[in-house]
């Protein structure tokens, strides 16, 4: 007896609406704190934020308390995950608990109603119509059909004749579909956490990587050294994990988990960044697109190539690469300027040069030497050229041109302002790109659970639609002959939602029944 009491109590605890309401409130309230405190941020930032609420003096103490409670990374903290689990359990138990009753409501066939219960319904109406029983039946059939009900009919126990019908009884499942969808979404999220990864990689133009990285708090110098050693070994082994594992005398799985400890996730292919490019609106610094040309290699063989953009990632072997950041390399000396040179005669030719290198300008004996590079050049108030940003918003190269006659002159050629490349003789030197000095920052993700999440989202949408916009309607019409040849009509109906519109339908039905035959 005692034991049953306990399990019963646990069951009713998890199936109570009260728990749902408490869990809703707790998740909402703690989440508010999580949006005020910056998650996974350096301590100083959050101390400044906390100081706004409790003052400078108390802030460090408050920080320590909140940190101990896990608020600095709260969406991953055990108590928050426990709350989410309570939420899931609550939904599950509630649904199981209420399911049998709803199942009965949906599946029990409709029967004629006892005579005296007609008045106890939410929606009722009465009428007296003339004419015989058969005519009334025929009229009732027609009227029901015209408001869209397919009714069953038969004599009832108290000498009357009833029509009864229901519509969309299954709409009562809408709420269950919605609730189960939330569970499906949570399951999908868990699959993602256990079988997927989120990582990043920065690839300079022209380079290739067969690993991606995760943030791992490496504590000691030794950790950093070990990480570097593992990366070196991977490079020597050309990414061949089986080979490397054999040479280390461990299994491939062991090697993988060791790499993962140091935040290294090996891919079984190689990803190369051929080019990174930014587009701007007109000549402004307002970005229009960030693009990377990526090529996937299996061994030495290129198998897939795509320009990715912010809303258009590259997918390969279950891993998706998203354009997430970009930047200029610290060392720009290896960059190569690419020019498109149009001579006055209309011919055009491509020339390439690194810093310090020279090339002859087509159609003449003049030579140009590449002497300078700026990622973003503009003129200051005095008209002097200055670099105003450390990303390639407005790339420019400085050229020293030695004319046929031996005169030396310098000039800046800007990619965004082609007119800067006109020489005196009408030759146009266009800067196409300064290649090899930018990196593209990619977010790499593998998430086998995402389709489960999407499935949950789809069923959630369907479930909510059914739950909120569809209604289980029941309807009875009873005909009883009265003295004097008239027929008494009683109508009763119920709707699980939007009673008002059903009431109107029943009004219309009654009006149709009363209508005089012409």
């Amino acid at each position, binding site marked *: 007896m005692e034991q049953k009491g306990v399990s019963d109590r646990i069951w009713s605890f998890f199936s109570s609406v009260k728990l749902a309401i408490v869990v809703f409130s707790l998740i909402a309230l703690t*989440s508010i704190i999580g949006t005020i405190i910056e998650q996974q941020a350096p301590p100083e930032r959050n101390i400044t934020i906390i100081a706004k609420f409790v003052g400078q003096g108390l802030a460090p103490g408050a920080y320590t308390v909140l940190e101990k409670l896990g608020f600095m990374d709260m969406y991953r903290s055990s108590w928050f995950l426990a709350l989410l689990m309570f939420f899931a359990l609550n939904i599950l138990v509630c649904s199981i608990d209420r399911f049998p009753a709803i199942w009965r409501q949906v599946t029990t066939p409709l029967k004629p109603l006892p005579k005296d219960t007609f008045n106890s319904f939410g929606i009722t109406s009465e009428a007296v119509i003339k004419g015989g029983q058969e005519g009334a039946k025929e009229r009732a059939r027609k009227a029901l059909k015209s408001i869209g009900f397919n009714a069953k009919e038969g004599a009832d126990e108290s000498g009357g004749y009833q029509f009864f019908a229901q519509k969309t009884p299954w709409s009562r499942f809408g709420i269950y579909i919605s609730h189960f969808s939330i569970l499906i979404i949570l399951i999908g999220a868990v699959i993602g956490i256990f079988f997927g990864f989120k990582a990043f990689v920065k690839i300079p133009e022209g380079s290739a990587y067969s690993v991606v990285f995760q943030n791992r708090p490496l504590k000691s110098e030794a950790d950093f050294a070990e990480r570097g050693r593992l990366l070196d070994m991977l490079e020597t082994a050309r990414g061949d994990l089986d080979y490397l594992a054999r040479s280390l005398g461990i299994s491939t799985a062991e090697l993988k988990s060791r790499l993962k400890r140091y935040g290294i996730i090996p891919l079984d292919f190689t990803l190369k960044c051929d080019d990174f490019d930014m587009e701007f609106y007109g000549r402004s610094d307002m970005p229009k697109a960030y693009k990377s040309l990526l090529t996937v290699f299996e061994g030495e063989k290129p198998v897939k190539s795509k320009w990715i953009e912010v*809303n258009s990632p590259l997918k390969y072997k279950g891993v998706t690469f998203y354009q*997430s950041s970009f930047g200029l390399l610290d060392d720009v000396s290896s960059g190569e300027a690419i020019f498109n040179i149009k001579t006055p005669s209309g011919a055009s030719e491509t020339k390439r040069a690194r810093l310090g290198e020279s090339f002859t300008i087509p159609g003449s004996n003049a030579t140009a030497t590449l002497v300078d590079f700026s990622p973003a050049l503009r003129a200051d108030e005095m008209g002097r050229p200055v670099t105003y940003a450390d990303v390639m918003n407005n790339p420019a190269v400085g050229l020293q041109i030695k004319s046929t006659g031996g005169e030396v002159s310098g000039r800046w050629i800007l990619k965004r302002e082609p007119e800067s490349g006109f020489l005196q003789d009408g030759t146009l030197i266009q800067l196409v790109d300064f290649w090899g000095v930018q990196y593209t920052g990619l977010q790499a993700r593998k998430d086998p659970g995402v389709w489960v999440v999407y499935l949950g989202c789809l069923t959630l949408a369907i479930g909510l639609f059914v739950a909120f916009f569809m209604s289980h309607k029941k309807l009875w019409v009873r005909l009883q002959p009265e003295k004097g040849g008239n027929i008494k009509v009683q109508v009763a109906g119920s709707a699980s939602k939007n009673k008002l519109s059903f009431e109107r339908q029943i009004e219309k039905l009654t009006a149709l029944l009363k209508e005089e035959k012409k």
Partner: protein
Amino acid sequence: MQSSVFFGLSTVAYILAMIAYITYIAFKNRGIGVAATGITIAGFASQTTAILLRWSEFYRFSGMGLIRSIPLTNLYESLVFFVWCLILGYLIIEFKYKNRSFGAFVTPVAGLALAFIDLSGMSKDIQPLVPALQSNWLLVHVMMSFIAYAAFALSFSTGLMYLIATTEKRKEASYFFWSITFGIFAVVLVSMGIDWFIYKGAGMKPEAFIRSYLFKSTFMSGSGAVQAVSYILGALLIFVIWRYGYVLKRVIEGFKLSPEMLEEITYKSIAIGFPIFTLGGLIFGAIWADQAWGVYWSWDPKETWSLITWFVYAFYLHARLLRGWRGHKISVVAVMGFVAVIFTYLGVNLLLSGLHAYGSME
């Protein structure tokens, strides 16, 4: 160019409609009531035209395809669309419930919002889209979110009116709730107005204004005395609203809206807003985030606040449908739900990121 003419016309129409609705309530003249509805519909038509014109202007300007050119990409455009949804929702209610009184409450909100946008000098320029916004999800995600916000705004106003109309005594908890909520709204608006006046906010970008100047002339002033006075005056204003709340109660009683009807409109607006918000706001938002950044959920403040809003309305629905909450209790939840909406829509963008921005400046 032309779109702004139609925007101006709709602003004028909504303000005229407000006058007509109030006159209608005062004199109960059917003709004036019909005129009020007519003016509102004209304003709505003009606003619709303006939005469509702006859409086509942006389409021609950006060269990005029709769907991606929907004018919903900044604070100005989103506020305009919000007002549009609000008026649409109101017109539906007017025709369904055959009651015009509510218009006296909605048209001033619409007219004043549009006038505020105009006066504030909020940037109305058509701005090119940053890469992250260049997606077809923009249309469905933002549009559905705002339809839901408008539905929630309606539920908020009817919920608040319900509370005002049905509380009798000043000592009641729900009287405290509505008078203090209302009072805080008033205090925030007044102090924002003072900031605006002192720092000549006109012409500034609203984001920049709020980040650098909000409450700086009152509650967050450098001088302790000014701060103290601000708090005292703020408390005083709330007290006055609490003390003389019956005036507001009488006005709302004058609308001749039955409390049952107010409660039903509150529920229906939430029942419509909630599924739309779930699908358009949360689900489509998650799918878009997944497409653009590779994470469908990352607990960033905007996402988290959407979830908080969702939980508050889920709470409302469960409390009402399963626990049978009615009356004051449930109306308080509806009002709080919209406070969460405001925070999701404006607070996160303006205050929360602002808070972090202050942090990095120091």
